[in-house]
C-alpha cells in the first residue's frame, strides 16, 4: 500500500466532529482547511485569536480591509453577530474554557498527548504565538497532521523530542490515514480511512496503538 498524503481528508474528518454553534479556533495552515468541510446545517463560530469572534471567509478581490486580518495576517471578513476585542479578552475567551475546540498543526505528537509545533532548536524558531494558550484552554484539542513526514517517518511518536507546545493536552490526533484518541498513554485507533488498514497503521506508526473495540473503516470519499 502506498501512502498518499491528503490534507483534505484530515480536514474533512475533523470537520465532522463539530456540532452547530461550536466555538472553534483553527490554527493557520492545514487547520484552516477544516472550515471548508463543515457539514451542512452546522455553523461554527470561529474565534480569531488576534481579536475577534465570527471569523468569516476571505473577502472578494478588491474588498480587502487591511484592518481586518486573521492570525496569519491575511485579510478576512467578520460574520454578522461577531465582535472585536483586545488580546487580553481574546485569550480570556481561549484560556477561560469558552472555546469548544482548537485544531493545531503538528511537528510531533506523542501518545501522552504532548504536542510539539513551535520550535526546532537552532533551525526554525517561529515562536508559539497563541498555540500554548489554545492547547491548555480549548475544551478539545485536535492535532491535525499528515501521518508521515517528507522522509516517511511517523509523526506520531512514543515521546516528543522537540520542545513541547503543551504537555498532556491533545485529545484527538487526526491524520490522513486514521483517527486516534489519546487515552491512558496510548493512541486509541477509532477509525482507519479507506484504503488504509489497521495492520498498515500498526506497522508504520512508531507508537503504542490500542485498537478500539468499535474501530471501523471510514470512507472520506
Amino acid at each position, binding site marked *: 500500500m502506498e501512502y498518499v498524503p491528503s490534507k483534505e481528508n484530515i480536514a474533512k474528518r475533523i470537520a465532522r466532529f463539530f456540532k452547530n454553534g461550536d466555538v472553534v479556533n483553527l490554527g493557520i495552515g492545514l487547520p484552516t482547511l477544516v472550515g471548508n468541510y463543515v457539514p451542512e446545517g452546522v*455553523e461554527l463560530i470561529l474565534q480569531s485569536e488576534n481579536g475577534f469572534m465570527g471569523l468569516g471567509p476571505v473577502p472578494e478581490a478588491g474588498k480587502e480591509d487591511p484592518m481586518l486580518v486573521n492570525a496569519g495576517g491575511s485579510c478576512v471578513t467578520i460574520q454578522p453577530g461577531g465582535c472585536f476585542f483586545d488580546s487580553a479578552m481574546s485569550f480570556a475567551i481561549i484560556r*477561560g474554557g469558552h472555546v469548544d475546540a482548537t485544531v493545531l498543526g503538528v511537528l510531533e505528537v506523542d501518545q501522552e498527548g504532548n504536542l510539539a509545533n513551535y520550535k526546532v532548536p537552532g533551525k526554525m524558531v517561529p515562536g508559539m504565538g497563541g498555540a500554548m494558550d489554545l492547547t491548555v484552554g480549548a475544551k478539545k484539542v485536535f492535532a491535525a497532521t499528515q501521518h508521515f513526514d517528507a522522509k516517511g517517518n511517523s509523526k506520531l511518536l512514543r515521546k516528543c523530542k522537540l520542545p513541547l507546545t503543551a504537555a498532556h493536552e491533545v485529545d484527538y490526533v487526526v491524520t490522513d490515514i486514521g483517527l486516534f484518541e489519546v487515552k491512558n498513554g496510548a493512541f486509541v485507533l477509532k477509525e482507519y480511512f479507506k484504503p488504509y488498514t489497521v495492520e498498515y497503521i500498526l506497522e508504520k506508526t512508531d507508537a503504542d496503538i490500542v485498537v478500539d473495540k468499535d474501530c471501523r473503516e471510514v470512507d472520506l470519499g
Partner: protein
Amino acid sequence: MLAKPIVTAEQAVGLIKEGDVVMLGGFMGCGSPPALLAALEKKGTKNLTLVCNDCAVHNLKTGEMTFVAPLVAKKQFKKVIATHIGLNGEIQRQMNAGETEVLLVPQGTLAERIRAAGAGLGGVLTPTGVGTEVQEGKKVIDLDGKRYLLETGLSGDVALIRAKKADKAGNCTYDKSGRNFNPLMAMACKTVIVEADEIVEIGQLDPEVVVTPSVVVTHLVQAKK
C-alpha cells in the same frame, strides 16, 4: 451565529439550584437585573451563595428594600461575598448574629478574582490588602521587594446580568455605570442569563462596541419596558 433561547424570568431562575453560587451584576443595584431578582425571590430558592458588589439598600428603620435586599431578608443566601454592605442593615445584622456567612473583599480584588476565573487564570498577585486583615490565610509573594497577596479565581454557577442591548446570539452592551461587574461575571459562570432592555436581531450590534461576546451567554430574558 446560533441564537440563544429567549426565556421568561421565571424560566430563567428555574436554572438556579439550591446550593448554587450566583453572581449578580450591579453596584448599589445600578446594573442589577430587576425581573430576574423578582422571579428568584418569588421562587424562593435557598442555600445560595451570592457574589455581588454589595447588597443594595435595606433600611431597618423605614423598611425600605431595593434590588437584592428582599432576597437577603428572606435568607435565600447562606453566604454573601461582597465588597460593601453599609447600606443594608439586615445583612449586617445577619452577619453579626452569625446567621449568614459574609466575606468582605476589596472591590478591585473581587473584580480581579472574578475576571481570573473567567479568563482561566488561577489567580492574580495584588498589593491590595497587604498588612490588613485581608491578608490572613493568604500566600504573600515578594517580587523585587514589593509584597503581593495571591488572590485566587472566583467562579460561579449562574450569572444574573443586566444588559442594555443584546442581540439574539448573546452579544451585550451595557448602560452607563450599570456596566460594573456584569461583563466580568458573564465570563465566570457556567449559566449566564442576560436580562436585556432590548433584544435585537443578530447583526444589529456594531461588532466594535460589543462588551460581552455572545459565546459566553446561555439565556436571554426581555426586561420589562
